[in-house]
């Protein structure tokens, strides 16, 4: 499932995928894969992304049943 919340949070900060990738120490393709729903990140990467984007885990990664 696509992670549109993460994509919009990134876009809201006017950050490119590359800038977010550099900030959390992964490749741009990894950020792209997370946003497209092709890759499930570890909790460690999730928290790094949340800190960088100023959001909580719930806001970016929690999926309502």
């Amino acid at each position, binding site marked *: 499932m696509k992670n549109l919340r993460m994509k919009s949070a990134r876009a809201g900060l006017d950050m490119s995928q590359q800038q977010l990738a550099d900030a959390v*120490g*992964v*490749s741009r*393709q*990894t950020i792209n*894969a997370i946003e497209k729903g092709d*890759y499930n*990140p570890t909790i460690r*990467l999730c928290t790094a992304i949340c800190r960088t984007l100023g959001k909580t885990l719930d806001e970016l990664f929690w999926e309502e049943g």
Partner: protein
Amino acid sequence: MTYRAGLALGILLGVLAGIALVALLLKKKVLDMHFDERQELARGKAFQYGFLTLLAAAYAYGVSDVVLGRWCDVLTGVSICIALSVCVFAVACILKDAYLSLQERPRAVMTLFALLSAVNLGLGGMYAASGDLMQDGVLTFRAVNPIFGAATLVILVVYIVNHLLRDREEAE
């Protein structure tokens, strides 16, 4: 010095030169081994494919030797198996964007691959022209150069095609 001792010394010096080159490239950060978590996962899967290919290729080589008789030097046969498995590993990594690490510059690495490919295929061409590639219908150990040249060429071509297709996909 006998021919065999000279051969062994030449191979040993070649291997040492290769190790020194890789060490230098790692030190200069042209080659790097730091991957992110998604890349590590993809590389693990690619390694499985490469390992299984190596097993299958080694077995196929053994069977071919029994069925067809000696058609290549053992070093050449082993090199074919290794080159095949390395190609499978590399292509699986490239398709998952996990071949190059975070620090590696694609242009530098691919230039290195192009050089390796050109040198090895060039040597293969020279051996073929001088008739050293085949002796009495057997592929000699001199075929190792063109085998690895072809392997690096395959990796280079797959990387470039994948890169171009992905760029086009992302631009759409």
